[in-house]
């Protein structure tokens, strides 16, 4: 008797299984489940574009409608990865154009996207709907024009913090009159001015537009007419908020804001003048997300806004908010889940405001749902971290950036080991952690012992020795991404814990004391990893004992990548070393 579930039935069941994690489990059950699952997966996510080849992905998931790709390692955001390292999306677009022409959505993070890529997307995918580029670079506004003109059913076009060669604002006028399907448009990272009349016409024929994020060049004056054309907006990113308006214009703008009955998210507000803050009062009670991280206003003005935002779940702000302002956040925003405080200091190498660890303590005390924190602060104390941990054991993400490297607890002058110990001990569901300040190996012993759910860990200027790395690699069971810069450990811990690296997505180390010889050894020991040595200034001859500038190690099914620039070395460039030749422990 055939006990197999008919594939049609399995297909139907799988249509309810959305999560890729679950689908991955399904595909491990047996061959027929693997086959059914792969033929029905619509949304494919590849978190390291070099872990697998485009052809393999296209072959496995022929019905793919949505593809998400991530390229460069996270520290590329902070200029630690030299230009030309890689992360090119072109091979992926080529492969998908050939094998999955019904692709509708492409979401890319930290990848190099050229105008050619955008033109190819426009030409190859007839039903293309969604393009979201985060922290990408390599294209110009001409590429955007290609997308605009050809994608008849475009729904989302979002450019989030991309570096774009801005040739002009014409690209917007390429959206045809027949395009009425727009749901989301984000061009906030572009510099040049778009034609207001083009934008107005686009809005008039986009009844489904829910999210609009303008760039800085869109004036306050223009904002009024745009809002009147799109009162149904759920997300708004304003342009510059600083022109001098006359009484009548202000009144009209105020009216326009009060018509935004669905607004949940507000951002932009560049250069906002304090006298215009009251314009926003009417939308505050409905807001769940507020991004003031580009609004250079003082604490007293920020507070006026925040007291009115009782439903806020996500707040991004600069340290201009000061401890006092965070006290107001604590008392007004009881629904707060995510808080990010960015530095405002000139040159970002010092702050000029009265914000200390106390601000975060206030928020941790009063906001029961707070689970994600990113906090830039000049210095911190262990007591504060212990208090925060005690108050908020439900933290999932804790990223503390003490801006002065090696800064100890500023009250006791001790390392911040005890503070981070409290965090990892109490916050049992902590998945992401960034540490900073003066830390000894002890801190990492604590993290290794308690950080069992930790998936991503970022470390800078910390620790004393190899023990630091050893504690982390041997202790953190769920560790997936580890990135380290400027820490004094060497080869031993890395080589001893090599097997761990197969269970992780990637490991980044820069300005540490790893030798070239260890990199070679590691490469031979672990053929399923790509061990990349990234050295912009390599020595003429590379003795085994010479330290490397950066090393990026990731597991991969794709083998050595074919697009390595000169300054990236892997063992495959020295085939004479071979796998069996050197002595392996």
């Amino acid at each position, binding site marked *: 008797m055939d006990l197999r579930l008919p594939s049609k039935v399995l297909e139907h069941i799988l249509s309810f299984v959305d999560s890729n994690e679950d689908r991955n489990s399904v595909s491990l059950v047996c061959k027929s489940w693997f086959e059914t699952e792969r033929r029905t997966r619509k949304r494919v996510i590849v978190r390291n574009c070099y872990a697998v080849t485009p052809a393999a992905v296209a072959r496995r998931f022929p019905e793919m409608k949505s593809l998400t790709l991530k390229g460069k390692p996270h520290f590329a955001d902070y200029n630690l990865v030299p230009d030309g390292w890689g992360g090119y999306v072109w091979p992926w677009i080529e492969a998908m154009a050939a094998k999955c022409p019904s692709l509708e959505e492409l979401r890319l993070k930290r990848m190099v996207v050229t105008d050619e890529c955008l033109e190819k997307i426009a030409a190859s995918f007839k039903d293309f709907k969604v393009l979201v580029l985060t922290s990408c670079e390599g294209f110009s506004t001409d590429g955007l024009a290609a997308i605009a003109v050809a994608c008849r059913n475009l729904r989302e076009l979002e450019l989030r913090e991309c570096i774009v060669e801005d040739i002009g604002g014409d690209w917007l006028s390429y959206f045809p009159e027949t395009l009425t399907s727009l749901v989301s448009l984000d061009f906030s990272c572009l510099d040049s001015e778009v034609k207001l009349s083009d934008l107005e016409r686009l809005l008039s024929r986009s009844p489904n537009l829910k999210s609009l994020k303008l760039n800085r060049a869109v004036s306050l004056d223009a904002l009024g007419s745009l809002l009147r054309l799109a009162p149904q907006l759920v997300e708004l990113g304003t342009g510059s908020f600083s022109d001098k308006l006359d009484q009548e214009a202000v009144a009209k703008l105020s009216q326009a804001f009060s018509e935004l009955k669905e607004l949940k998210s507000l951002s932009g507000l560049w250069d906002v003048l304090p006298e215009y803050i009251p314009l926003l009062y009417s939308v505050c009670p409905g807001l769940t997300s507020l991004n003031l991280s580009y609004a250079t206003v003082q604490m007293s003005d920020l507070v006026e806004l925040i007291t009115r935002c009782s439903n806020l779940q996500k707040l991004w702000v600069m340290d201009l908010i000061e401890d006092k302002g965070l006290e107001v956040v604590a008392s007004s925003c009881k629904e707060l889940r995510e808080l990010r405080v960015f530095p405002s200091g000139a040159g970002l*190498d010092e702050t000029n405001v009265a914000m200390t660890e106390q601000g975060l303590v206030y928020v941790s005390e009063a906001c029961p749902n707070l689970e994600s924190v990113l906090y830039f602060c000049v210095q911190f104390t262990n007591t504060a971290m212990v208090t925060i941990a005690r108050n908020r054991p439900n933290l999932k993400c804790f990223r503390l950036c003490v801006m002065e490297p090696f800064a100890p607890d500023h009250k006791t002058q001790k390392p911040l080991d005890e503070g981070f110990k409290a965090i990892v001990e109490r916050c049992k569901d902590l998945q992401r952690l960034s540490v900073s300040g003066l830390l000894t190996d002890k801190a990492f012993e604590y993290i290794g012992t308690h950080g069992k759910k930790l998936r991503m860990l970022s470390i800078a200027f910390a620790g004393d*020795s190899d023990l630091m790395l050893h504690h982390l690699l041997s202790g953190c069971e769920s560790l997936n991404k580890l990135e380290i810069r400027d820490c004094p450990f060497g080869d031993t811990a890395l080589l001893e814990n090599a097997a761990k690296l197969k269970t992780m997505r990637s490991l980044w180390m820069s300005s540490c004391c790893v030798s070239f010889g260890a990199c070679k050894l590691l490469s031979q020991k672990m053929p399923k990893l790509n061990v990349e040595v990234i050295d912009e200034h390599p020595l003429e001859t590379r003795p085994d004992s010479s330290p490397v500038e950066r090393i990026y190690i990731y597991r991969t099914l794709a083998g050595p990548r074919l697009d390595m620039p000169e300054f990236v070395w892997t063992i495959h460039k020295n085939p004479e070393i071979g796998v069996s030749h050197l002595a392996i422990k």
Partner: protein
Amino acid sequence: MENVGVCDEFVNLKATELRLGLPGTEDGGEEERQKVSCCKSNKRAFPETEKDIESTGKTETASPPKAQIVGWPPVRSYRKNNIQTKKNESEGQGMYVKVSMDGAPYLRKIDLTVYKQYPELMKLLENMFKFSVGKYCEREGYKDSEFVPTYEDKDGDWMLVGDVPWEMFVSSCKRLRIMKGSEAKGLGCGV
């Protein structure tokens, strides 16, 4: 196992020694910094910073690193560029100088052009940092004050605030420092 050496610049190999016991920090904070700067002697800014601390006599809590470190603090370039632009725009007018106070963990910045004379400036500083400064007299400076306002002029010399005419002060002041009275004994007397 093949003896893979670590970088030769390491003065104190103890730092990389794997031990069975608990890693000790018996050496204390200062040496930690030195160990790390040995490792990266040609790249790190910190050796300069420590020299700086010694020469200006500032407390460690009041002096941030002077040199720029690549990728630090970890803020995306996009964000850095946008805040920088804003800063440049606002500094077109005004003369901003940094103000530090011994013992305070943060710096402030003030616009000197906003004030007309010394008393206004003093009042602001007193409010900002919650201290009070006694009366200024030409002969003895701020006698018996717990805190004394000083400034660094164009030539790099530390002067007592109030010694020179206001306009000259505004044009030559590079930064302000509110010093502990006990440390300011050398300034402003017997001139």
